């Protein structure tokens, strides 16, 4: 029984060790938080979310955004449309524009300007509407070459569209997550602190400084229990 127990614990230990890798160079991550709503890039965009680098000099390597297809959007008539022609658009079938995948969003890295997004520093990628689904999903935007970031500096990740994209950016339930508190998000031309829940994204960096994270608590307690049970067994056998 003892051999089987130790074998099982050792297997679990190796399994936990395999999955216990520490994410290196993550600057901001709230992708695993719950989602309460989303904001349409066409309706209230461009949309931005800030992150900070802290004291470790690093480079931006990749960005992940939680996005979805927010569905048909109300068609906005050009202001110069003649009144007689406008009537036709109020038929229910004509009030919405089918999302034909023709739009797209552009993702970029922006400088900070007094806790608002400033100048575009680097384009990160584009995403066409036909890649989006109506279910929330994380979309990865790896950078072709790492972008160097200064230490103790705030930056913004922004998405924008100039062709009526149907993309929506997920909004978290709270401001929990790595690097999330004390940051800001931006929509409808206004910046808000992350205490009003921010957009959901992961900002991944790379660094030449090694983090010294402790092993997973699952491993530690597992090993501790295994050690204690071995000791108890040995003592019981010794006294028995």
């Amino acid at each position, binding site marked *: 029984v003892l051999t089987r127990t130790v074998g099982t614990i050792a297997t679990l230990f190796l399994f936990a*060790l395999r999955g216990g*890798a520490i994410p290196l160079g993550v600057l901001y991550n709230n992708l695993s938080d719950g989602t309460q709503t989303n904001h349409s890039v066409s309706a209230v965009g461009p949309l931005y979310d800030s992150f900070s680098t802290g004291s470790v000099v690093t480079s931006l390597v990749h960005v992940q955004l939680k996005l979805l297809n927010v569905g048909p959007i109300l068609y906005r008539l050009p202001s110069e449309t003649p009144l007689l022609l406008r009537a036709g658009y109020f038929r229910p079938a004509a009030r919405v524009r089918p999302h034909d995948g023709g739009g797209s969003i552009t993702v970029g890295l922006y400088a900070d300007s007094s806790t608002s997004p400033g100048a575009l520093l680097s384009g990160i990628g584009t995403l066409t509407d036909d890649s989006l689904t109506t279910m929330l999903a994380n979309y990865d935007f790896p950078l072709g070459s790492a972008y160097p970031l200064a230490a103790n500096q705030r930056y913004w990740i922004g998405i924008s569209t100039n062709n009526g994209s149907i993309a929506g950016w997920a909004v978290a339930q709270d401001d929990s997550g790595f690097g999330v508190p004390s940051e800001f998000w931006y929509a409808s031309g206004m910046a808000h602190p992350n205490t009003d829940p921010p957009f959901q994204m992961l900002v991944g960096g790379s660094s030449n400084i*090694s983090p*010294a994270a*402790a092993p997973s608590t699952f491993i*530690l307690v597992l090993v*501790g229990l295994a050690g204690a049970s071995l000791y108890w067994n040995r003592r019981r056998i010794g006294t028995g």
Partner: protein
Amino acid sequence: MLAALALALCYVSTLGGMVHQWWTDEDMGYGFLVPVVIGWIIWRERGRWRSLPVRQSGWGFAVLALGSALQLASVLGAGLFAGALAFVLSLTGVVLCLFGFAWLQAWAFPLLLTLFMLPKLAIVYNQITLPLQLLATRLAGGMLRAVGFAVLREGNILNVAGHSIAVVEACNGIRYLLPLAFLALVIAYGWGAKSWMRVAMLGAAIPIAIVANALRVAFSGLSPVLTEGTPHALLGTVIFLLCLGLLAGIYQLLALASVRLLTRAAR
């Protein structure tokens, strides 16, 4: 059994949130093992609590009402921690309602251990993280200097012989503190320690965890090999086992002190 099922149904979203945090947050990964240990303790003590008289108590409804109010607050926005605390309170209420105070007393220790399943309280965690990181950096730097290494400390970064190491959020010592506190209680229980000895071991776990974490950071600073992958995890695990050995030593001292006090009192 029906009461347990009803309780699980009422708190299904809270329990789901707790399991999600155990799965995604490595600080809380040990949460999966807490119910297993609680189950083992209840099973081990079955002879004792089965022999107790069942005297249902109306106070259980008051505790249940308190738990329900807290759960309502959690649903209205107080967050997962409030919901998880409400679950523990409701569990206590159910025990009181169905079995009475004698059973609650018999199950007090396993119920106390359920507190280790609770999610992190963000407002406290965010406040203590940075001071603990800086303390670990300072202590590790001091240890390395004490054995003759040239160390340059800049905030939470240590530079040892051209190799830099960042004492990031995951190095703040919480990953040693919570498991060590949990194991201190479980080991003390396993050895049949008295209540005051369990409290003393819990208290001893705090400084041990802080110093051991700094020692782990100091070792990591010595070589880049020790900062990543399996060597790093093994280093952290070995130091943790040394902490358990130290706790065992403290238990032996407490037991010795207890025997001497009893002997003196008998005279």
